[in-house]
């Protein structure tokens, strides 16, 4: 933070040389992203936290309610290998950005990182991944430790509010639907339809401009199947294990003042430089306004199961 205050704002473009962005270029790239992918929007955030080097209404980028159907661990090795091949980044050096290893993910898991047993999912069909990794009971115990006593919400049951049985409501669960009076074939089929609603994790992803590293910085905020905020350790389940505890940490979001997990930007510029160079080698003119597309493509290595939109037809 303090360093950030004394760091001068980058004013000349060093996109091609160093893979970094000026605030103006960040805005340019953000404009293209919001234009092409309507799920991304510019946000102004908390006005008292506005930064002067970005337009007031373009302080950071946000995409809401991005579905995340499976945990990283359940990803098939093949798909991972495919991504890894696509973006093979520096693999030398101690603190280099780690690209996911195509093989052997299941084997070299650090025991202290995640409780593996809780992550086993029977997922033959993608639809069955609805209910999470953990049974609810476990969850409650967890929360007891972390978040204090969980009240018994049955105490809160207000017997006065019993709602009229309404045949025109598509209920959330089967038992209540089938009790409606007109349980003809029609209702039946709707119950089935209702089953197609998948209760899945979702993420809000935001991109801020990091003045110190002169790159975008990605923030994640997750919600579980019941729209409860995910705890940091649960968010780690959606980050490829190579990155989970190395490149992702928690800090206060600069425009919202709330703690989020973020992907540490220290290697972003170097990786972007590589990708830009590769574009040039392949005879493509790298365009600074496409920076975020390229950037998000490489971020998808870190968060492979979060299905955010970054589709723009272009080659690296």
């Amino acid at each position, binding site marked *: 933070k303090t360093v950030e205050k004394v760091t001068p704002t980058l004013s000349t473009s060093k996109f091609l040389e160093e893979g970094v962005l000026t605030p103006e270029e960040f805005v340019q790239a953000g404009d293209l992203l919001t234009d092409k992918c309507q799920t991304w929007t510019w946000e102004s955030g908390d006005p008292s936290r506005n930064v002067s080097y970005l337009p007031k209404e373009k302080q950071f980028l946000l995409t809401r309610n991005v579905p995340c159907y499976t945990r990283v661990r359940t990803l098939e090795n093949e798909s991972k290998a495919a991504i890894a091949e696509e973006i093979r980044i520096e693999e030398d050096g101690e603190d280099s950005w780690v690209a996911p290893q195509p093989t052997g993910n299941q084997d070299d898991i650090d025991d202290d990182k995640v409780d593996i047993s809780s992550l086993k999912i029977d997922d033959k069909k993608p639809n069955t991944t609805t209910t999470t990794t953990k049974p609810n009971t476990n969850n409650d115990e967890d929360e007891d430790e972390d978040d204090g006593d969980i009240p018994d919400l049955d105490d809160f049951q*207000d017997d006065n509010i019993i709602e009229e049985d309404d*045949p025109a409501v598509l209920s959330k669960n089967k038992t209540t639907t089938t009790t409606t009076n007109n349980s003809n074939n029609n209702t039946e089929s709707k119950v089935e339809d209702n089953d197609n609603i998948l209760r899945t994790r979702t993420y809000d992803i935001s991109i801020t401009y990091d003045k110190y590293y002169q790159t975008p910085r990605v923030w994640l905020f997750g919600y579980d199947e019941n729209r409860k905020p995910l705890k940091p350790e649960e968010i780690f389940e959606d980050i490829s294990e190579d990155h989970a505890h190395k490149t992702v940490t*928690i800090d206060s979001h600069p425009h919202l003042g709330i703690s989020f997990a973020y992907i540490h930007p220290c290697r972003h510029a170097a990786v972007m430089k590589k990708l830009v160079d590769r574009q040039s080698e392949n005879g493509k003119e790298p365009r600074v306004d496409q920076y975020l597309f390229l950037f998000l493509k490489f971020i998808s290595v870190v968060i492979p199961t979060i299905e955010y939109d970054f589709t723009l037809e272009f080659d690296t």
Partner: protein
Amino acid sequence: MSNTLQFKEFSSFVNISFWHELSNKKLDELKLSEEPIPLNAHYTFSPSQQLDPFLCLEFNAFLKNNTINTTENTYVLPPRSYLSHGTLFNYNTVDDFKQSPKLKLFDEASKRIWNDIKNGNVDKDTSLLNRFILLTYADIKNHQFYYMFGIPALLPSQPIQQFTEQPESINIESIKSFSNQSLPQYFCLRQGDDQSSFELIGSIEEKGNQYLNDCLKDGSIPLVGFCDPCPLPSNPGWPLRNFLIYLSVKYPSLKKVKVICFRGNGVNSNNILLSLELPSMSELIEKQQQDGDQWSGKSVGWEKDTNGKIAPRFVSLASTMDPLKLAEQSV
């Protein structure tokens, strides 16, 4: 055969930033006040066919809608999103929260919707059809929140029927002059020469009255549309309910209507066309008039838990708000 139209309820989605804002407000402004506070929430098209329709509350929910004072920050809807007007009832203690007059508050919200329909406010602003109430108890010390949502839908005397077997799925490519940015919440359309092409006439506020009266005159079935947060192939979302009530009250001779449930321009959007028979509201209207023209009918819309029970929900944000826990997490 009866073919009752069933609506998919909203699921509330309270962003963590809302709870932060509520905590701050409680400390700095509200203190012990239990006065109702206006809120703004939004809904948008479902990003995936497999997600619930969400009613979202974010940190900016407390900002006012249209302030004349330009120095004040105003509430800005995210793109492609639609407004729902809310009222927050925040209680100081668990017991106050438990004993709050929930039925009365819910009825009051229903009455406001009815009054806005009757006195013509909805003609000018259809977003008034979407209201919700939020009851909360914020235990700021422990970063814990209890809450209940009510999203009222007025009930007609008879459930609304479809006069076709199933909703028809329609092709979005063929709707002319639809641009996502400018699509109103409720609108009317015209069917083109070719069966599958549609053209936007305008919002209900601008063109609705003229269009519907024209349809009544020449006896054609009007075609209206709304932006639907629900992705299901056979069911519309909650925002259609009060809109249909509005149509039946405002145009008592309107018996049939076709409704396009517009779900966005995306590749996976799943637009459907409903053919509906509107119920007669005359009985209800008469009854209201006897009751001093107040809504005394029934309404539904309390948010249920996963077991289908109407019960408060609970969220603990200790892991993201407690400074001690945060210190542990950060590297």
